[in-house]
């Protein structure tokens, strides 16, 4: 970060950033800000659970997010001025610029750092990070809570569109990002901003966007990437909020920002948090879908599948470039026909979802799965997925038989804790022991965990299929045919996950019948929500298979596999 950035706020930025990750630079700052704005913006109105963050903090996030990118510019003119009034102006300007998301006006603050007129200091990596932004979000979701708010997805799409335009025009994205960018731009444009949550339009999940949307969805409530960095930003935003709501505080704030290390405060907070968590293991166990999904390696498989998909996409592109005339037309038609299969059938499958498979048993699903994989002509085994599915069905069914007897029984805190520890090691075993004595909370947690596991296994299955389609086929099957089978496979998975989540919800309702609505409803809501998200994950993963099939098609039909 160059020195001319040292205005009131940037100074603290710099200090803190170097403390935590010395490689951070200002544009990345800005990225994170705007991304949090996207998220928090959505969260504020719709958040069903009250425990998220204070509204004020949300607003602050917006303010800071929109305002931040401008500040380097203002700082350039006021340069190291300690004058409170100047700072006030700066802040006021920030507030003005908060026209925010969805409106075209929001493009202005977001684009600002790219404006050549702005001498925003560190141009080292520029906006090249956009592709990776999605990726880091993806993995950060690993550690976060899965209160997916699907609205966030659309927002992310919109934001990404803005940025993909930017990064498209700026040079030097990493190889992967380059490939991703056209697709993303496409996708974002295609996406209906008012679309209903689980619907992922045909092209709506290729490339970075899918990862991004997934990540954002599962990140939901907890906002941002990696730990301390994120906390810092939130903290800074909180400061801005304080300033905004309390004009007298402004001057103090600017002074304070120079003297108090936010990261220090945050570290303390983190320590406290740690201690608190250690004492409240039980509470903390409460069903973090995103974390569990990651624990079952769902995110990793999704990421790997996405890498595969991006690479395939670029292979397809480069092969297309190498062709011309009739050959090109023919191949294009083929590729489009594969794409059409992906697009059309999926919508259909969603309609069917309601009718089909509500009462489908795990075993039926298992045999269907095996059959479909066989039909695909890939040597993928569904063992892991089947096992997870069986496990999920089994615990509910076992419990359903016993639970009616002692619905109201609350197990004591101690046994709860013990069970928790056991579960971490071997979930299956402990489940058998605690037969029929589950509390609502436990049922809820188990449901979420099962859902996360099954979904992760579905993603894994699709990932394996993709790998085998590319590299493991002994006997080739036309890609169009494979596409059709894959749709059936995906549909079966989604139906199964949907019915599982319904089953869990039903069970939850039974167990919690004596509970107050305030206690039970949030659980049921988030159960349904995560069920919805699960199918979206699977459908998104399925869409990532399109380029894979297209490459496979090229490899079999055009003999010269683009390497």
């Amino acid at each position, binding site marked *: 970060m160059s020195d001319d950035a040292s205005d009131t706020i940037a100074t603290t930025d710099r200090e803190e950033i170097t403390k935590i990750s010395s490689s951070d630079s200002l544009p990345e700052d800005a990225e994170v800000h705007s991304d949090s704005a996207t998220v928090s913006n959505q969260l504020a109105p719709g958040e069903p659970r009250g425990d998220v963050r204070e509204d004020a903090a949300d607003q602050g996030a917006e303010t800071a997010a929109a305002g931040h990118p401008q500040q380097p510019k203002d700082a350039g003119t006021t340069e190291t001025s300690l004058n409170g009034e100047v700072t006030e102006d700066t802040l006021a300007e920030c507030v003005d610029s908060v026209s925010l998301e969805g409106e075209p006006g929001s493009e202005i603050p977001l684009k600002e750092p790219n404006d050549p007129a702005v001498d925003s200091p560190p141009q080292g990596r520029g906006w090249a990070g956009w592709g990776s932004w999605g990726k880091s979000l993806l993995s950060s979701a690993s550690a976060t809570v899965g209160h997916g708010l699907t609205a966030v997805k659309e927002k992310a799409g919109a934001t990404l569109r803005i940025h993909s335009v930017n990064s498209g025009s700026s040079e030097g994205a990493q190889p992967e990002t380059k490939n991703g960018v056209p697709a993303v731009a496409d996708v974002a444009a295609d996406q209906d901003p008012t679309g209903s949550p689980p619907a992922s339009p045909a092209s709506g999940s290729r490339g970075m966007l899918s990862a991004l949307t997934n990540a954002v969805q599962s990140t939901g409530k907890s906002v941002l990437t990696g730990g301390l960095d994120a906390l810092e930003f939130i903290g800074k935003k909180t400061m801005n909020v304080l300033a905004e709501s309390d004009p007298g505080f402004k001057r103090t704030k600017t002074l304070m920002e120079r003297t108090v290390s936010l990261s220090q405060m945050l570290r*303390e907070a983190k320590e406290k948090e740690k201690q608190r968590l250690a004492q409240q293991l039980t509470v903390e166990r409460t069903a973090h879908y995103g974390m569990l999904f990651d624990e079952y390696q769902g995110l990793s498989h999704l990421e790997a599948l996405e890498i595969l998909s991006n690479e395939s996409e670029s292979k397809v592109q480069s092969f297309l470039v190498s062709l011309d005339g009739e050959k090109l037309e023919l191949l294009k038609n083929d590729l489009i026909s594969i794409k059409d299969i992906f697009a059309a059938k999926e919508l259909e499958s969603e309609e069917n979802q309601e009718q089909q498979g509500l009462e489908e048993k795990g075993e039926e699903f298992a045999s269907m799965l095996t059959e479909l994989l066989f039909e695909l002509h890939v040597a993928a085994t569904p063992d892991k997925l089947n096992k997870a599915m069986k496990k999920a069905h089994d615990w509910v069914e076992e419990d359903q038989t016993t639970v009616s007897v002692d619905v109201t029984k609350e197990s004591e805190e101690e046994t709860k804790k013990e069970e928790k520890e056991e579960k971490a090691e071997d979930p299956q075993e402990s489940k058998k022991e605690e037969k029929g004595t589950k509390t609502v909370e436990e049922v809820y947690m188990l449901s979420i965990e099962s859902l996360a596991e099954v979904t992760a296994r579905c993603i894994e299955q699709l990932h394996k299929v993709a790998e085998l389609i590319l590299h493991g086929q002994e006997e080739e099957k036309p890609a169009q045919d494979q596409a059709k089978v894959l749709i059936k496979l995906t549909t079966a998975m989604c139906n199964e996950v949907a019915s599982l989540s319904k089953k869990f919800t039903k069970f939850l309702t039974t167990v919690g019948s004596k509970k107050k609505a305030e206690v039970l409803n949030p659980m049921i809501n988030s159960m349904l929500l995560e069920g919805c998200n699960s199918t979206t994950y699977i459908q998104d993963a399925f869409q990532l298979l399109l380029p894979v099939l297209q490459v496979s098609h090229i490899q079999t039909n055009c003999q010269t596999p683009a390497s």
Partner: protein
Amino acid sequence: MEAIWLYQFRLIVIGDSTVGKSCLIRRFTEGRFAQVSDPTVGVDFFSRLVEIEPGKRIKLQIWDTAGQERFRSITRAYYRNSVGGLLLFDITNRRSFQNVHEWLEETKVHVQPYQIVFVLVGHKCDLDTQRQVTRHEAEKLAAAYGMKYIETSARDAINVEKAFTDLTRDIYELVKRGEITIQEGWEGVKSGFVPNVVHSSEEVVKSERRCLC
């Protein structure tokens, strides 16, 4: 579930097929040894927490790659997002040792612009009677590439912990010294995570107010 960790390191495990990559990882993450194991398809994932100092936990995200040639083009894509790697050969299989050069050359090409800290692992050291690669020559090779060398056995659980934790420590030192930094768009190293962000931000507000007075 243990959610609190200082860093997450992504490690990649490579080497010829049948040298025992998956078995080594399973021993490390699940504490088990499977007599029979299917060849890995593409890539698989495992994770485990490692406590390198009291209270300092590191989450290892381990990418288990297929050794088979046909999956090579897939696994190549994964090098660049790894911070560390275990390069395995089978001490009873001379060929797998000779291929170590090749593996290193390949990673060098694909890891750019980042770097991977590798450790060379001579696996199946329980089968000493069938040994085809001496410890000495393996150490020499490792030294030539600036790697550490360690001999392990997944079956008898020899040095499995050590192989992973030593590598983790080495990386941690590099991170601490700033020679490896967390970078946007690079998955090799991620900083830790505090599970309840909500709570923390409230804490922050309080601290700020307190500081103000």
